[in-house]
Structures are given as structure tokens and as C-alpha cells.
């Protein structure tokens, strides 16, 4: 599993497109199942999973318990890793970096920031390589 992380408009999409020009892109819609990629992924093509912020924003409203939400996300990551290990597609995650600002006034935004941070840590733990995208440049962190 490959993880690309970076801030807003940092160039994550371009960095991934350049490295995986033939990839199938799966966008996690708000409220959609986390394994929605199962329906469309093809083993021979890299699978890019994006849209985590939109999914998280919607999930925060329905799940008040952050630990449970984090566990759900970690389980989704485990499934992706398992599929890749069984000869499935190379999995590429695009995650947002949003933890380097002022603590938000809104509780929901604070939770969003926490969960995005935990998701990134949990993804890094499982990823083979982690790439930090900053102003269009890419640095390997892991």
C-alpha cells in the first residue's frame, strides 16, 4: 500500500496520476460503504482510494464515538491491505494533511482533524511507502 499525504491543493492528485497513469480511482462518497471499491476495482490496475474527508465529515454526524470510528477506518485499511496481498491491485491512498493550523472553534472540526490524523497514522503503519506532497514536490517519509 502506498500513501500520499499533503495539504489542500498541494498536488497530491498530480503526483499520484503521474506515478499511476492507468489507475482506477475510487472516491469515497459521504455515507457510502468504505469497501465500495470492491465493485469496480480490477486486479491488474492500481486502485486509488480518495475522498476520505467527505466520508469522515458525514460519518462524524452518525457516530459520536471517535474510537469506534477510528476502528472502522482501521478495519477498512486492513481489508485493502489484505486484498493487495492476495494478488489484488496495488492500493494507493490519498489522505489530507489538516493538522497544522489553529485548533478549530467548532467541536466537529476538532473531531475531523483528530480522526484525519489517526487515519493517517494508522495508514502509515500499514503502508509500504509514505509520500509527503508539498507545493507540488514529493518527499518519501517511509
Amino acid at each position: 500500500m502506498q500513501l500520499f499525504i499533503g495539504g489542500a491543493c498541494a498536488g497530491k492528485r498530480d503526483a499520484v496520476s503521474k506515478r499511476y497513469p492507468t489507475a482506477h480511482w475510487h472516491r469515497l462518497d459521504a455515507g457510502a460503504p468504505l469497501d465500495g471499491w470492491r465493485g469496480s476495482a480490477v486486479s491488474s490496475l492500481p486502485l486509488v482510494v480518495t475522498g476520505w474527508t467527505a466520508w469522515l465529515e458525514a460519518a462524524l454526524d452518525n457516530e459520536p464515538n471517535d474510537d469506534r470510528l477510528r476502528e472502522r477506518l482501521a478495519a477498512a485499511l486492513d481489508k485493502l491491505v489484505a486484498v493487495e496481498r492476495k494478488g489484488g491491485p496495488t492500493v494507493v491512498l490519498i489522505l489530507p494533511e489538516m493538522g497544522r493550523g489553529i485548533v478549530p472553534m467548532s467541536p466537529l472540526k476538532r473531531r475531523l482533524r483528530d480522526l484525519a490524523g489517526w487515519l493517517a497514522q494508522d495508514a502509515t503503519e500499514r503502508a509500504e511507502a509514505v509520500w509527503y506532497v508539498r507545493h507540488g514536490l514529493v518527499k518519501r517519509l517511509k
Partner: protein
Amino acid sequence: MIVFVSGGARSGKSEVAERLTRECCRARGGALYYLATATASDAEMAVRIARHRRERGDAWRTWEAPLALGTALDNVEPGASVLLDCLTLWAARALFEARYDTAAGLTQLEALLVAARVRSLDLVVVSNDLNEDVLPQDVETWRYIAFLQHLHRALAGQADRVIEVVAGVAIDWTEGREAT
């Protein structure tokens, strides 16, 4: 040489950029210019500007960056070293005052970089990293972040050196371009 230096608030990015510009100046023996983008819009900004000016010392010739950034280096003699501090403020004025769209903003930046190369200047550009926060809800802030990031990406793609500053420490990102 073109250098892009960025970091968070009070990360020490201006100090790192000033040091680099001075080093360029010493190596080349040309004049030292400070291209300021901040205007004293209130008393706090005036104090802030005075502090920056005091810390820089009097070796610098200071003038204000125009909205038409592409013309900023028109009167600078070849071989000089120029520090532009900071692109973030220029971007805000370009977007909200001059009402530049992304293409117009990029054209101005491009003209600035071309002028620096044609005149064989050392140009060090300072900016703030603002895009690693929770995404803004209001449209105008979003538009600003997107505009600024277009500039940052263009600059990072063309600069000879790209530096991130964290707690006064310069982290080199120049290698990152080869990998893209």
C-alpha cells in the same frame, strides 16, 4: 539563482531567507534589495514592519512590491541579490485588490522569475504554508488557498532550491522535484 523558502508563522523563515540572501550577496558582491509586500494597515502591522526592518539592519535597500509583480525587478541592476518577503501578502492583494485570476497571478510570478534569470539576480522568495489546516468553509478563503497554492507549486517547480523552515531549521526539498 532562485530560492523558495516557506514555513509556518514564526517558524524563522524570514531569518533563514535573509541569511541566504546575504550569503548570495557576499558571494556575488552585488547590491542587497528587500522587496516588501507588507503595508502598515494598522498600528500592529507598523510595529511588525519596524521590527523586521530593525532586525535586517541597514545594508538593505527596501522598496514595496508592486501589484504588477512581474515589473518589480525592472530597476534592479544585474548581479544583485533580492529578497521578496512575502508572497502570501502579495497573493492576498493580487486576488482581492487587483482581482487577478489564477492565470493572471501565474503570469505575474512567471514574469518575476524570468526577470530574475535575465538579469542574473539571486532572488529569494518567502511565503507562508497555509494549506495544511482544516479546509476553510467560506468560498473566499478557499479561493485564496487555491490561488496561493498555484503560485507555490509554480515557484517550487522552477526554483533552484526549495526550503521548508520548521523552528528555525531549514529542510531541503529541492530533491523532491526530481521525484515528481
